[in-house]
């Protein structure tokens, strides 16, 4: 289905290993040095694979009734959390096939999970509320009800929690939950990413635009012209480039100089169906994009946002998530058929 005619991975991508899980592979991540890849599926299965061979380390079914919605790997890389339609969060040790702790968050779906960068707090959103927990699973604080269901959460490097929903982005103090800042805009914000320095908040909006604010000045801008809603967003580690999905093209905005306001973005055009996920490899301008077409494309970008494809592969169905191994020498793709595909990266 892809515009790329690929029987096997090309460019910098080399065959690695592959495995399958029972249902739509909805979320995953690498452990500390890539010793293991953990994956959760839409039916509620959680799996750990040996990072080098792909052999199954352990698997557990029916962890969340109704299915898993989110997963977050702890920054130390040895633990992770899952959240699901059952209104619960489970805390896991990567080495063990049984959840160490279960947290009842609410009666509604728990859609979003995120660990603070220092690993001290876990945030989980459930309907209009966000709650934070210590690493021991004890609740730290909970927010007031937001005006609508929270669609995305993220931590800033300064230890604040950001939430996005219809009409606003709000910031809360990590330890007390005190509201710090509210950025408003009338639109349905479907995705959110913070720049590594925490100053820029970028959100994809239902009306096929990307809206962003600079927190220091509260100035905001809107980038429109997308052919679909930008649900995939990624900043590189240096905060130079913001890659955005939304339609078949990847649009890359450069924050170099006075940009991106008044500049033209880089446009990466190879997918034939909408882009679903984007990820930068650590400390590089190397981006990977995945789409509904099942194509996975690695791009080498320049600081102006333009770039070229340097590797590509195809999986069986819609690409759900892409994860670079922390050292950038392997790449994992999760797909809608439950496929888990890992390539070595030259």
């Amino acid at each position, binding site marked *: 289905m892809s515009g790329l005619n690929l029987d096997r991975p090309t460019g910098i991508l080399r065959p690695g290993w592959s495995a399958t899980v029972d249902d739509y592979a909805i979320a995953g991540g690498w452990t500390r040095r890539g010793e293991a890849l953990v994956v959760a599926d839409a039916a509620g299965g959680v799996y750990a694979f040996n990072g080098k061979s792909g052999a199954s380390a352990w698997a557990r079914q029916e962890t969340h009734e109704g299915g898993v919605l989110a997963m977050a790997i702890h920054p130390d890389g040895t633990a992770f959390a899952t959240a699901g339609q059952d209104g619960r969060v489970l805390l896991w040790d990567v080495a063990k096939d049984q959840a160490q702790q279960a947290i009842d968050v609410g009666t509604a*779906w728990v859609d979003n999970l995120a660990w603070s960068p220092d690993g001290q707090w876990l945030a989980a959103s459930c309907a209009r509320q966000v709650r934070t927990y210590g690493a021991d699973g004890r609740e730290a604080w909970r927010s007031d009800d937001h005006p609508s269901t929270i*669609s995305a959460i993220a931590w800033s490097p300064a230890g604040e929690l950001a939430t996005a929903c219809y009409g606003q982005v709000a910031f809360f103090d990590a330890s007390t939950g005190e509201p710090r800042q509210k950025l408003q805009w009338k639109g349905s914000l479907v995705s959110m990413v913070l720049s590594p320095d925490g100053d820029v908040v970028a959100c994809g909006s239902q009306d096929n635009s990307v809206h962003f604010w600079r927190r220091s000045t509260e100035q905001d801008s809107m980038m429109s012209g997308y052919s679909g809603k930008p649900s995939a967003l990624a900043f590189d580690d240096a905060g130079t480039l913001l890659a955005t999905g939304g339609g078949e093209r990847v649009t890359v905005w450069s924050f170099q100089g006075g940009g991106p306001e008044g500049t033209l973005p880089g446009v990466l055009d190879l997918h034939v169906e909408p882009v679903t996920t984007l990820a930068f490899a650590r400390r590089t301008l190397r981006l990977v994009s995945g789409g509904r077409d099942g194509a996975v494309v690695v791009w080498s970008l320049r600081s102006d946002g333009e770039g070229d494809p340097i590797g590509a592969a195809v999986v069986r169905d819609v690409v759900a998530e892409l994860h670079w191994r922390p050292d950038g020498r392997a790449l994992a793709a999760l797909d809608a058929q439950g496929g888990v595909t890992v390539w070595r990266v030259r």
Partner: protein
Amino acid sequence: MNIPSKVPVSILTGFLGSGKTTLLNRILSEEHGKRIAVIENEFGEVGIDQGLVIDADEEIFEMSNGCICCTVRGDLIRVLGNLMKRRDKFDYVLVETTGLADPGPVAQTFFMDDEIREEFSLDGIVTLVDAAHIEQQLGRSDESTEQVAFADVLVLNKTDLVDDEALDRLEARLREMNRMAQVVRSERADVPVDTVLNLDAFNLDEVLERRPTFLEPEYPFEWTGVYALDPGRFELSLADGPDPAMSLVVVPDQGTDDAALRESAESCVRQYAEPAQPIDPGEEIPVGTHVNLRLDSPGRKSFFLDVDTPVRLGLYAQHTAEEFDLQLKNAEGATIRQEVERTWVAQHEHDDEVGSIAIETDGDLDPIRLNAWLGELLRERGVDIFRMKGFISLAGESQRYVFQGVHMLFDSQPDRPWGDSPRRNQLVFIGRNLDEQSMRQGFEACLV
């Protein structure tokens, strides 16, 4: 990659107390073999027995451009987006709205969001109406009017609380507002499940099959009789009837097949638009003229027709022959039977602001002109046009085009080939304060 079939979705609307939850439970118990997901926005009057029930807050998302037609239901996008990820997908999704919901954003969600559109198809909008209270509700709230206007099926519920005459009156009023919908009566939402599910209601063929007359144009006359007459003087005799006068056009050389009747009907519409010439009892009726027979004197009244050469006359009368016991007699006083008679869908008084307009014409449409006309119509009146459905014949296309829309959004797709069947256009608009004449003219100007 496999091409997944779309999961049908039905929307259940209706005021609190109209019986939505009763109907939901009925569907779930009768369709227990299927995987049905129910998305609920309020606590029902009774609990839901089975099936996967997802409570979601009704979240209306407007867009920054302020266009109401771009307003969608955020909760549905989120919930449906996740449901479609399961491999053992659902067979059916039911969305129950709150009593005060505007059905627009719910329906628009299935047009506006690409991912939802790819995985789900809107099967139909089912509106439950509490027969005992709807009249008051229609007077007081825009929401209940819109729920009626958007419906593919109107379930007239709690009929045991209202007498038959009132029900007939209510049904006529609802049909007037929404000629596209099928009306089903029930006592405790006990309607057959197949009247509300798998309607494929956005498929016009189905609609036509169910209600073949819904596209019939309305005429200012109700009845036509065709008489074959030899030369002579004829008496048209009428008894007392419901009105003190009756309009009539007598068409010469009238054919007896349906096409000929329709053709004359069209020309009579133009005649009827002209001022009528009043005719008193005892006077002669001119042929080919819009006349108004005065019937205010008591007892039978006679009017006369003079025929020079053998001819078939078509009488296009404002009321049916039955209503005035209309009879045509020759000079000897013998009653002459009409060769053919037929009735027409009569125009009604439009009490409600919300109503339906049906346009039906033969011939091909110029796609460029049609686009321009429709574009302008929807830009200017999209807010007031709730639903539209139809199929059209585009010049140079061998296939029929089906289209449907909600407010400003519309979808058009090639359908089956025309083959030998006559190429025609059929369209229905349901909306508020629509100007039928200008819409009809605008559409006809798009014909090649």
